[in-house]
């Protein structure tokens, strides 16, 4: 029997009638009204997700930059204070321990937001590699994190537009928040970090502004429509970052764990590549299904916006071009799909 952790908003989720499920050691809302209406609310207006289960690590000290440059795939030196970066914690074989967002808080202080299921692993990974003059601390319990996403999210929160992957301190309904211009839905929006004991006030204020509460179910379908990989499904320690399609987040001219392997993969080309696809026959692809002729589905669902089965799969590089047909073994039945370019869902202008 495992005790599940609860975010500061647990009671509010239950009161809203959410269906609570275990996720990465946490008891989280998978849906309130339903995955499809929540998904559509984010595409059309604004939705709010409690993502307080995610891990927050602070890395501080005169050598914090050196530690992060040596352990993360992207170029830390591109980060000014007030800027954020998508980056990978890589292992020796170029595989992905976790994909994280790194924020530069000030000169020698950084914040890492890690996936809930990997937060402990990332903490251990960095702790083992700590340098003299760098301190890594788990501050996950101090903060709550709310993602407010959708084309009307800024208007509903009364926020001005700002550049993606930047952050600034702000205030909402008297609550001091770190306003991060990041997200996992492909829509305009913010991720708001606040002190854990103020999360309820912030959540209530956001709902009062007409933002729809959304669960992890919609979070998954939203990210898959725009082909953002999910660690544990699409990316992981056994697939290198180039095959995973995340070469753009690897600064191969810097020195970090696994960079030699990644340079070699980049030069030779990976054996398989992660590709997005849509079904051309009626069927819903699911994680673990085989691609006929070699390959494996890593994520799949019914797209609420496209109303067809969509997914991502590793396929042989020679058969990874957009437009290539692929056949999925759907519990013994062969069903056709076609590889597409990212993202699968694009806003109509």
């Amino acid at each position, binding site marked *: 029997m495992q005790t599940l952790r609860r975010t500061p908003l647990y009671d509010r989720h239950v009161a809203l009638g959410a269906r609570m499920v275990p996720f990465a050691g946490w008891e989280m809302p*998978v*849906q309130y009204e*339903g*995955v*499809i209406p929540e998904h559509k609310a984010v595409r059309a207006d604004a939705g709010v997700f409690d993502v307080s289960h995610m891990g927050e690590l602070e890395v501080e000290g005169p050598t914090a930059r050196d530690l992060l440059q040596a352990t993360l795939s992207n170029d830390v030196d591109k980060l000014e204070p007030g800027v954020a970066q998508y980056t990978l914690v890589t292992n020796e074989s170029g595989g992905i321990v976790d994909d994280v967002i790194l924020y530069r808080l000030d000169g020698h202080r950084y914040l890492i937001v890690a996936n809930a299921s990997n937060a402990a692993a990332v903490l251990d990974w960095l702790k083992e590699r700590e340098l003299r003059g760098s301190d890594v601390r788990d501050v996950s319990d101090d903060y709550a994190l709310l993602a407010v996403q959708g084309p009307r999210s800024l208007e509903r929160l009364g926020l001005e537009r700002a550049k993606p992957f930047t952050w600034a301190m702000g205030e909402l309904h008297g609550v001091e928040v770190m306003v991060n211009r990041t997200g996992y839905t492909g829509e305009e929006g913010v991720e708001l970090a606040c002190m854990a004991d103020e999360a309820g006030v912030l959540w209530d204020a956001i709902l009062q502004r007409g933002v729809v509460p959304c669960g992890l*179910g919609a979070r*998954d*379908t939203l990210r898959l429509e725009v082909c953002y990989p999910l660690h544990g499904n699409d990316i992981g320690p056994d697939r290198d970052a180039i095959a995973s399609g995340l070469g753009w987040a690897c600064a191969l001219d810097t020195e970090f764990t696994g960079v030699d392997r990644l340079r070699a993969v980049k030069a030779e080309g990976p054996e398989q590549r992660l590709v997005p696809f849509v079904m051309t026959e*009626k*069927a*819903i692809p*699911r994680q673990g299904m085989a691609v006929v002729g070699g390959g494996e589905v890593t994520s799949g*669902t*019914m797209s*609420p916006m496209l109303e067809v*089965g969509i997914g991502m799969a590793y396929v042989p590089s020679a058969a990874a071009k957009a437009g290539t047909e692929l056949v999925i073994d759907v*519990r013994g039945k062969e069903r056709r799909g076609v590889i597409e370019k990212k993202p699968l869902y694009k806003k109509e202008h």
Partner: protein
Amino acid sequence: MAASESYPDELLYHSEHDWARIDGDEAVLGVTWFAQDALGELVHYEPPDVGSTVSKDASYGEVESVKAVSDLISPLSGEVLAVNQKVVDAPETVNEDPYGDGWLIRIRMSSPGERDQLLSVDEYRKVLENA
């Protein structure tokens, strides 16, 4: 719109949350309100072929929501006479009307005596209380 919770008196039930409406030597099969609520909005129905046979307690098809796949368990054995094309085209029909427009298949029973093993509505409600 999702239907509100109900379990009609005139149906027979299977503990895997399936129902049967028996008419002579034929039966219409579907899933209960509880099943569709647990799955959420259905987005795919994989029916059996007309003319194939289904066996009591075995899977005859699948329904899927965005998040989950569920086997359809047949409460009775027989030959598939018809598949509800409306549900193939619009699986959410099951959520809207699980005992009416959301029926799944019609069969000719091969072992009509199997009906004695099915649950009455009161017995099925007891299954739900312990679910």
